[in-house]
């Protein structure tokens, strides 16, 4: 949600540019589909999977329906644990609070782990303007930071890049051999250049995947251990988190932790599932609880359940449009199906195209570990956007076509010569699995009350 421009996002045009780049497209599509398949493998290993999804959904709906009470309980616990609790209505308030905490602690360097909330608040450019040096410590985020690009995926931020891109970015920004594209070399180069920055940092900032009202625990899941370093090395630890991350009981983690990494990366758990309740001896800990549009969404009958999202990215990995258009083409902090239902809540005109970047195949809804009815919410946004006349006339058709073409393997293969190259270099078996991929789950999605075609016809008549 860049402040410089409020031009409507042209997802179709951005996606067309992505498609024209055959090697990037082929890797992106293959890699994300591989994550989806690994997720399926994990799911089949857990007989109670569907029950866990029911529980996760019910726990989140319960918590959201009593959010004020659970926030107060969490706050009381955190204060009892010696944590300073701050509240921010929006991104600007959040950023001002973080800057004030840093200044009060005379902190000039900040190491941070991945946090979509701070992306949402555009915290890093704000802090940089005020003289704070920020280092992203997650490898993918670091690559994106050095390339002055936002993350393109909420779990794997640099998944749209090839190793040659990474080598070039590193050579330009942190030294290293631009010709050496070995992933081990590149990761090691990042490790040895980032570690001194972490050792010397004045402050660390992390997000949180879950906040436990009962114990005041802030739970952070990573594979690199970078959040644990960011939090445990400097004397000051700031946690920035959206108010929807609450869960009532510690025992509820037994449901969510079992679902999160299995859904996200197809591994049974992240390498590090870390629980922060209070500062270590000699340290200080702050938490900033951020609303930024969440309480408003809570009051929207059709959309409040999108707040159940645990940011696993499964809906993105499974989405044929996302896989073939890349996260950056959404022009928003959140991309993929979840982005297409969250972003319009902030600015329906600007993000009017996003709910159309979907085939309504329902695959997102089938994989969502907290059972958000994503495809139905996409459809509901289409109605609202159409009723509000928010789709610019000449763009109407091309945007709808983006969803249709990107989602239809047949049309997609015909769409450009370069895309044909991509198809040629993919293993045949993979392609064929992919064609029917979203029909492979256990259940079928509830069909929308009106088909896209009939909706389209009606719109044409009305318009």
């Amino acid at each position, binding site marked *: 949600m860049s402040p410089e421009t409020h031009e409507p996002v042209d997802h179709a045009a951005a996606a067309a540019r992505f498609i024209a780049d055959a090697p990037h497209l082929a890797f992106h599509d293959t890699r994300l589909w591989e994550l989806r398949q690994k997720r399926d493998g994990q799911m089949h290993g857990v007989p109670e999977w569907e029950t866990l999804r029911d529980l996760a959904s019910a726990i989140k709906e319960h918590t959201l329906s009593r959010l004020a009470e659970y926030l107060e309980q969490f706050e009381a616990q955190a204060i009892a644990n010696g944590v300073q609790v701050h509240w921010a209505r929006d991104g600007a308030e959040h950023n001002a609070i973080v800057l004030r905490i840093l200044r009060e602690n005379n902190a000039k360097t900040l190491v941070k782990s991945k946090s979509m909330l701070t992306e949402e608040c555009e915290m890093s450019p704000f802090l940089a303007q005020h003289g704070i040096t920020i280092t992203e410590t997650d490898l*993918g985020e670091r690559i994106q930071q050095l390339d002055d690009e936002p993350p393109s995926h909420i779990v794997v931020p640099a998944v749209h890049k090839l190793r040659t891109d990474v080598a070039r970015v590193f050579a330009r920004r942190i030294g290293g051999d631009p010709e050496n594209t070995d992933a081990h070399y590149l990761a090691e180069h990042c490790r040895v250049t980032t570690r001194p920055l972490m050792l010397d940092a004045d402050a660390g900032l992390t997000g949180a995947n879950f906040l436990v009202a009962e*114990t005041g625990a802030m739970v952070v899941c990573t594979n690199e251990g970078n959040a644990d370093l960011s939090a445990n090395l400097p004397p000051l630890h700031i946690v920035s988190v959206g108010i929807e991350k609450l869960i009532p009981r510690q025992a509820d983690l*037994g449901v969510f932790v079992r679902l999160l990494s299995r859904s996200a990366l197809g591994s049974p758990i992240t*390498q590090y599932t870390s*629980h922060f309740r209070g500062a*270590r001896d000699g340290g200080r800990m702050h938490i900033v609880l951020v609303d930024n549009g969440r309480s408003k969404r809570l009051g929207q009958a059709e959309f409040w359940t999108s707040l159940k999202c645990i940011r696993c990215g499964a809906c993105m990995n499974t989405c044929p449009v996302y896989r073939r258009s890349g996260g950056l083409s959404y022009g928003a902090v959140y991309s993929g199906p979840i982005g297409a239902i969250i972003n319009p809540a902030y600015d329906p005109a600007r993000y009017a195209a996003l709910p159309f970047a979907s085939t309504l195949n329902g695959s997102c809804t089938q994989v969502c570990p907290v059972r958000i009815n994503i495809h139905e919410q996409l459809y509901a946004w289409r109605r609202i956007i159409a009723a509000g006349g928010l789709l610019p006339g000449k763009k109407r058709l091309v945007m709808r076509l983006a969803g249709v073409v990107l989602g239809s393997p047949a049309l997609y293969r015909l769409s450009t010569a370069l895309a044909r190259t991509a198809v040629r270099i993919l293993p045949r078996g993979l392609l064929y699995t992919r064609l029917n991929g979203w029909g492979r789950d256990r259940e079928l999605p509830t069909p929308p009350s009106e088909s896209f075609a009939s909706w389209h016809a009606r719109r044409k008549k009305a318009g």
Partner: protein
Amino acid sequence: MSARDDILAACRAARPPGDHPLPNLPAFAPASSDLRAGFEQGLALMGGRSFDLPAGTALGAFIAAQFPGERLIRDASGELPEFPRVDAVNRPRDLENVDVAVVRARFGVAETGSVFLSESELQVNTVGYLSQHLVVLLDPVALVAGIADAYQRRDFGEVRYASLMTGPSATADIEGVLIRGAQGVRSLTVIFCPRTIEDAAARSAG
């Protein structure tokens, strides 16, 4: 109104209709009744390795033999007086030159191959991440079946920091290539051995 009161009032005003009761959490049957085998499989999947301490072998010598050429071994378990202690440093960053750190996990989780380590086991939290290699001592009887069982324990609520660690630091952020040792430890080795009696005595005395 303060931001806090505004946000709480907004959440109350926006409360979704309906009852939405908090569900009870059922207990699920463990994937396998052999906790030890499950743990080892889970750990291997996440890139960790595990050993039994061979009978008649001294623990310190066994560990040193696993890491030939690594110079600085520090101990947080209190069971290996031959190595310098982790808590003998002044600042968390002073552990940056540790080659191998030894800690004792409070318990392990069979479902995933995870170990529970809190500030009391790590002594200095950063040792679990700054060291190049981590050795985790685990009593084979200290295993719970599942993640859900782990979260039934009170341990999490009694400490300020706790991590369920599962294998070494890892990333696949560059073209999906799996790399061990992203920012944290490059390897994680679990050694099954009960706590030594001398240390238990030392702890209760301390």
